[in-house]
């Protein structure tokens, strides 16, 4: 992995982030170090596991911490930065606020369990099309299968869940 690769990943993530209403940390050197960490993890595990967390090395176990992780958006809302401070709020991106340490959210909130249902309530459109939810950004779509990549946050298909209510 070279610094050119880290730079290329940075450029790609920055343009994707900005296109989708997200912001990268304005400290470019710090971000390039994180890019190097993501690329190291990609070489090591086959996917870009969060550089600031210890991955198991088994994709199914690490799905929630593949960057961008399932915790990015709640951490952005609460702390103005994701756990790594790769993604930050607009205020922080504009230098109006400093990044503060973000406590680990993973494992603190048990998966929400609804009331036991005989038949799980899963989302369908009236025409019977299943509804899928991106666990990273919340994007919803109704189609036979989730998209290969989330059009909003670009994560892979396996980060989608069936959308259920109530």
């Amino acid at each position, binding site marked *: 992995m070279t610094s050119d690769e880290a730079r290329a990943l940075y450029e790609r993530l920055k343009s994707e982030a900005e296109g989708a209403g997200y912001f990268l940390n304005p400290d470019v050197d710090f971000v390039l170090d994180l890019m190097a960490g993501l690329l190291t993890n990609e070489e090591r595990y086959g996917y870009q596991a969060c550089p600031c967390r210890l991955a198991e090395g088994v994709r199914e176990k690490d799905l929630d911490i593949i960057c961008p992780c399932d915790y990015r958006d709640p951490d952005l809302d609460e702390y103005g930065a994701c756990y790594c401070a790769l993604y930050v709020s607009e205020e922080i991106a504009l230098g109006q606020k400093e990044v503060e340490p973000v406590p680990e959210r993973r*494992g603190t909130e048990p998966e929400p369990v609804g009331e036991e249902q005989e038949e799980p309530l899963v989302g369908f459109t009236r025409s019977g099309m299943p509804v899928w939810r991106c666990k990273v950004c919340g994007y919803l779509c109704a189609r036979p299968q989730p998209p290969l990549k989330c059009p909003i946050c670009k994560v892979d298909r396996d980060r989608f869940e069936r959308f259920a209510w109530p």
Partner: protein
Amino acid sequence: MARSFPVGRVDLSKEVVKLRKVKLYALSTCGWCRKTKRFLDANNVDYEYEYVDLLTGNDKVRALAEVEQYNPRKSFPTVVVQNGDTHVVIGYKESRLREVLGL
């Protein structure tokens, strides 16, 4: 025969620093771990560190058990300062590090 001893006051705070044990548990890929390490280096703190993601087998199990003892969430960086008391600093918190390291 009388032995000679160094004359002069002993700076106790420096003696305590010599006895102190500082250990950083880190990930080699993590930006906050890197910042913590740079902070310790910049302040000439005598410390040991381990990159837990680079360990394998029993070394990894042992290191993770150590981290868990101080930080059940097993997050990184975890800094453990032992100077009679045990202080644990989880995450890169400069002011807290200054406090527990007497900087």
